[in-house]
């Protein structure tokens, strides 16, 4: 059984980042962005196909949770944190 391809892993990473960005709450959003970055980076040198497969499916399950929670977070409004820019557009992350 072959593990997930490079493209699949990158696509998963992108989905994870995009859904983390969907969080309304600054703290959750940046927590999940940091978490995704460190997790993918820590496992980037993984060689064993079985371990890769395991990590990949774990990350997929987490993405499912993340998707649901980010949608839920959009149903509730939070006060902006002081560090957040008030206008919609932000290039700084």
């Amino acid at each position, binding site marked *: 059984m072959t593990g997930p391809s*490079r*493209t699949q892993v*990158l*696509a998963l*990473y*992108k989905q994870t*980042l*995009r859904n983390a*960005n969907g969080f309304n709450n600054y703290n959750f959003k940046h927590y999940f962005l940091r978490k995704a*970055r460190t997790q*993918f*980076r820590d496992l*980037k040198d993984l060689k064993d196909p079985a371990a890769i497969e395991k990590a990949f499916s774990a990350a997929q399950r987490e993405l499912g949770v993340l998707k649901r929670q980010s949608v839920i977070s959009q149903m509730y409004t939070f006060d902006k944190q002081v560090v957040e820019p008030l206008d919609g*557009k932000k*290039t*700084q*992350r």
Partner: protein
Amino acid sequence: MFSSLLRGSTIALRTASARSALRPVAAISRTSLVSPLRAYSTGLNRDDISARVIDVVKAFDKTTASAQVTADTHFAKDLGLDSLDTVELLVAIEEEFDVEIPDKVADEIKSVAEAVQYIASNPEAN
């Protein structure tokens, strides 16, 4: 008698011409229902896109501060970004322009010029 006949024929002609004039209008509205053509904006200026992409790349925290970001900058070669960094950068660019870059295309984007090219070709970018 003849005149009334003539008048009748001209009326018939007029209605016929009116109908034929109406027909293309109806045809146009029907086709526009099939494929709605929407124009939200006049499209983005290529130089603006390029400037905004460069700003995003500069704001990206893994870009080395001393690096010169120009329109021809290559993500991996000039900025030393790996594939994960490139994905992060593309997500930032997606956010800036409110688009979603499909995975197949995103795989091919490896430089500022290619990103600008894609955004320019995407009508939904703004």
